[in-house]
């Protein structure tokens, strides 16, 4: 209960401050956000877009961990968790893709540029999509759990290769990518003032809490469903 209220307060605050605080070229007061050259008001997307992308990765990892747990223990409740995490991950992945694409249209001039991060999220979408088509194609529950767990693990094992391949093949537009003079290191590091950083990390925490809540809800509904199914 405490977490739910904390989540409510935190995300509301993130929305109000993240979108509401004025921007100024030379921030003086605590409430003024710095203007990032070339981005302007559009920089505010970072408070919402990055957490969704972050969650789609977290969800994928969660799903994989529970997939391994299922194969070791053969307990269907792990499969429920694995697929619940994957379902949420898919949703957040779509959100990240859409918010990113709309924003890219206004900042980079087109919805899609095949920049490394866009490519990686595209791959993640493909994996999620394949995962769910596989699940819908298997009827027996135990078999479905085993096959989709195996697939999730195989997919997860190949994902790190993209990290090595992407920079070789394409130059990036996202902050932190190769070819970006400002950015060094991951996306979070780019020229954020302390107050922006607080909002950003609060947003990460809030979104993670939201994910956790939705995740437990999904697991619980699935368990109720499974119970009803069992009783016929």
């Amino acid at each position: 209960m405490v977490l739910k209220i904390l989540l409510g307060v935190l995300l509301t605050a993130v929305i109000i401050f993240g979108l509401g605080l004025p921007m100024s070229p030379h921030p003086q007061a605590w409430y003024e956000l710095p203007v990032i050259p070339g981005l302007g008001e559009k920089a505010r997307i970072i408070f919402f877009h990055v957490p969704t992308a972050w969650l789609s990765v977290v969800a994928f990892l969660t799903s994989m961990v529970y997939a391994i747990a299922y194969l070791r223990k053969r307990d269907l409740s792990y499969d429920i968790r694995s697929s619940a995490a994957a379902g949420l991950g898919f949703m957040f992945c779509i959100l990240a893709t859409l918010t990113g694409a709309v924003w890219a249209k206004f900042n980079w001039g087109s919805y899609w540029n095949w920049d490394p991060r866009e490519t990686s999220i595209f791959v993640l979408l493909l994996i999620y999509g394949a995962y769910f088509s596989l699940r819908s194609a298997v009827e027996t529950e135990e078999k479905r759990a085993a096959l989709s767990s195996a697939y999730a693990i195989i997919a997860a094992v190949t994902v790190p290769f993209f990290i090595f391949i992407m920079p070789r093949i394409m130059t990036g537009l996202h902050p932190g990518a190769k070819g970006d003079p400002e950015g060094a290191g991951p996306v979070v590091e780019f020229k954020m003032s302390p107050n922006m950083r607080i909002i950003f990390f609060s947003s990460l925490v809030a979104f993670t809490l939201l994910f956790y809540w939705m995740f437990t809800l999904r697991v619980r509904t699935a368990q109720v469903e499974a119970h009803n199914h069992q009783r016929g």
Partner: protein
Amino acid sequence: MSGRVHLAGEGLRKEYDRRPVFGNVSFSASAGETLLITGRNGSGKTTLVKIICGVLTPGGGTLSLTTNPHDPSRDRRGLIGLVSPYLQMFDEFSAVENLAIAMGIRGLPFDPRAADALLERVAIFPRRHDQVRTYSSGMKQRVKYAFALIHTPPVLVLDEPMTNLDVEGIAIVRTIMAEQRRHGILVVATNDLSDIDTYERRVDLDEGR
């Protein structure tokens, strides 16, 4: 030759789609004994057979198969032969080739004379070089007996042993069953009790429902 074989199941259970097929099945049998598995359609005879053969993991409980002296060159697969209606031969190969493939995949040396003798016994010998797909269903069933016996398993598992067989086939199978009981364990899953005259152990899957 196979020493003292012992097959035991303890508290075996299996679920499909969260629905129990059977729960808490226990049995044991030693060399020279016949284990009979009976139960209505859908009571899980085939499931239990597959668990005994090691191709299906039980949902719970333990299954042990021991030989004495222990023979390390053979794993569980090498100790069991299965004949069942849902078992299929590699039907673009001939009967002899099927036996050679079976021995090769088991990692064991293939003896063509032993194979010929076995095919002679199940009365397939004259057509042993024809592709299995050209056989009638009764002949296929006979090839399965050769397939299950080629590695002289101490445990022979028969699911509905008389399926598709004519009078001659039934007589062949009866002698095979009698012989298996002399040196090893015979497991038969059937509802037709006229197939089998004597048995020492019995699992009734209808019990406790």
